[in-house]
């Protein structure tokens, strides 16, 4: 059984639950539910930072460009970017496909949810600052150059689904040994494991907090594995991280959505 923190749609407070991944059930206040029957809201609320080039495969794929213009040398600090509040969506929400685009790159990311203010944290103490872990789909419009901040490609409405819940730290045996799988319309498209990170969970927290504070409730994404798949209109994207959860979202044309916010369940009338 894994302890999780979750938010139920329409209710302002957070709940704690016990998830049985095998039976796909969750126990909340002594009541048992199937994990699929709850309408869950975004379980995180702070700042969200993404990390680039943090899988050995994604680093290796870019390595030949690192000594060329305009990069000139390999990165020293973690390469970070911000997913602002407008990007957050719950599991089950729709990801808007902006007008004029046909494909979105979908990014299977483990999100580290910070539990207490973390500044200049040593690597061997880093996990003590973690509240737990969640599944994030770090969506972007595909872009080749990583020289300039890609806000237009990264920060669009609905480009950061997260959930379905946050699994508490001690319910995850080893965050650096988690299988990650991404499915599109039920078909396995990508498979990786957090053991392939360039900076492990602890090392990443330590290196990031060496120059900027992470607050309780902030989420740091460990990165997206190499060969992130593309998804198109009507595709259903599922990201599964063992022992953390399964996040699912469907891509719909932005112009068909009211403010970009709709549930998969509401889209049948589109």
């Amino acid at each position, binding site marked *: 059984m894994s302890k999780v923190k979750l938010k139920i749609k329409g209710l302002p407070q957070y709940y704690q639950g016990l998830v049985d991944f095998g039976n796909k059930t969750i126990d909340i206040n002594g009541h048992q539910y199937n994990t699929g029957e709850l309408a869950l809201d975004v379980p995180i609320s702070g700042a969200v930072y993404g990390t680039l080039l943090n899988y050995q495969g994604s680093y290796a794929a870019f390595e030949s460009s690192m000594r060329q213009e305009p990069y000139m040398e390999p990165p020293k600090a973690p390469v970070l970017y911000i997913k602002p509040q407008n990007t957050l969506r719950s599991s089950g929400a729709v990801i808007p496909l902006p007008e004029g685009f046909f494909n979105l790159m979908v990014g299977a990311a483990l999100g580290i949810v910070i539990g207490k203010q973390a500044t200049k944290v040593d690597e061997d103490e880093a996990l003590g600052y973690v509240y737990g872990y969640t599944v994030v789909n770090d969506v972007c419009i595909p872009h080749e150059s990583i020289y*300039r901040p890609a806000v237009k490609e990264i920060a669009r409405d609905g480009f950061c689904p997260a959930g379905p819940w946050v699994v508490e730290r001690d319910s995850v045996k080893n965050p650096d040994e988690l299988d990650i799988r991404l499915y599109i319309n039920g078909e396995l498209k990508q498979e990786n494991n957090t053991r392939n990170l360039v900076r492990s969970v602890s090392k990443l927290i330590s290196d990031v907090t060496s120059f*900027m504070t992470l607050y309780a409730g902030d989420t740091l994404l460990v990165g997206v594995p190499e060969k992130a798949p593309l998804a198109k209109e009507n595709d259903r994207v599922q990201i599964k991280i063992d022992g953390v959860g399964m996040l699912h979202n469907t891509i719909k044309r932005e112009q068909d959505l009211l403010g970009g916010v709709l549930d998969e369940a509401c889209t049948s009338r589109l």
Partner: protein
Amino acid sequence: MRHARVVYNGSIHHAVEEGGRVKLNDGRLLDETDVAWLPPVAPRTVFTLGLNYEDHAKELSFSTPKEPLVFLKGPNTFTGHRCRTFRPSDVTFMHYECELAVVIGGTAKNVKKEDACDLVAGYTIANDYVMRDYIENYYRPNLRAKNRDACTPLGPWIVDAEDIRDPMNLTLRTYVNGKITQEGTTADMILGIPELIEYLSSFMTLNSGDLILTGTPKGSVDTKVGDEVVTEIEGIGKLVNTIAGEETLVREKRVNMT
């Protein structure tokens, strides 16, 4: 009207300016130095423009970008008026950037520049420090150079939009230890405020409390530990900041302990 968020007697207050002094909600009138100043808005999504003044782009040997150079800032990097910004000991070039900050006052997407004024709640001043030694060529300017703790003083006040007749014609000045080191005008922005709101809202929803830091003109010089840096914008105010180093922090620690 000018609005601030201040700490006084252990509580956070909304304050307004009256005759150069700070007036709390309950009417108490205080001096500027009686209160601790918070950023006048709790930052949520904060956009910053790079190279949005041609003379500053030239100063950094860049041609002006085809696509606007926009980056985001996290909540850790903001601090208030009369606060200190830390200069790491291994840094050789740390410079201020005096910027007009636009406070968004509504929720909107796909705003046309003709309608952009309606979305502005007010204006404040940002000092967008950068440690040039830490600049790297990945998502440049990177967070290690631009998003350090307390590295972006903001304030002192938000001035209501209706009190600024023409935000695109304001003089910006920076003084280091009383000596003027930077002077420019918002008239020289490459993309003006209406164009920036149109551009940003063309691809994402803007929300109340979001900020747009509109870039800085030329005149960036290195600032040392102990320097007092005042960034001033006509009609908005003067934002005061002091550079602190390791010694300052150690001394403070010692004072606090005795």
